[in-house]
């Protein structure tokens, strides 16, 4: 009970270690890294998430937005294209149109 309080990132890292296949925890960790300015770790987590679970549609847009902010347009386009096929396979038209409009914006 008197353990020093862990950071949100540490807690999410523990989830990912305990449950490596839990896509949402890894997504949460990637987002936390991104929101706290650690783009390098966010990049690794987004990549490993999409490798393990290419159907986790929400990650494509967030990852692509981060790549655009980092001026990595080519990689962003690649991610957006993969995201568009993943979203279309899932029938997620809302996500698909969001991904498409970002792709148009940066092309």
């Amino acid at each position: 009970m008197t353990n020093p309080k862990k950071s949100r990132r540490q807690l999410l890292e523990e989830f990912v270690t305990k449950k490596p296949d839990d896509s949402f925890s890894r997504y949460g960790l990637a987002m936390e890294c991104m929101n706290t300015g650690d783009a390098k770790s966010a990049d690794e987590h987004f990549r490993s998430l999409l490798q393990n679970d290419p159907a986790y549609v929400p990650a494509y847009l967030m990852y692509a937005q981060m790549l655009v902010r980092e001026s990595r347009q080519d990689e962003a386009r690649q991610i957006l294209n993969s995201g568009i096929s993943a979203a279309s396979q899932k029938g997620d038209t809302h996500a698909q149109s969001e991904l498409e409009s970002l792709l148009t914006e940066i092309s």
Partner: protein
Amino acid sequence: MGVSRPDRISLFPLDVVLLPGAPLPLHIFEPRYRRMVNRCLETQDEFGVLLAMPRGVVRVGCTARIVEVLNRHSDGRMDILTVGSAPFRVLELFTVETPNEEALVEGHVDYLEDHSQPADPPHNPELVELYETCHTIIFGDYPKNLSTNPSARLSYIIAATLPLDLLWKQRILELRSETDRQERLTGYLREWAPHLQKREKTLRQAAGGNGNGLN
């Protein structure tokens, strides 16, 4: 429910969905509700909390049991702590007029029980996993209320703790089997969870208030 409950109860429309077992602190300032609370304290009755909608109230609510009067202000206002008790459906509404006060609403109600088959199903592992991660993202900590409250329904604990859309909470309150509630809630969280960190400031602010409304 095992205990006999009155068919007619006072109703308190709020911007809240109260769920069985969930704590709800309230600041009572309107004279008609002070009267209602004082009467409930005398008779040890519960009052009904219903989600207020733009046009009227929903028909399914949950009774609130007053656990403690936290504070009685000199002008009659009160801070009370209540806890959600029994889900009910309103069959008929009555307006009770009192001179010089706004009317109170009472309802003839039917108490809603869960279907018996399995009354206490095993916890849906995906739901627990989603809950733990959502809780950690929003509150910066593991949820502790799963282990401290083994007798409460998992679906109610989760729906009461997370700052979910009120209409989703209302749907959870209206389902009459724990298996269905857990399944529905898992679907809601799957949809909701990836958006949490996109608008994180707003959510954390909302979470600070524990999602509970004041009258």
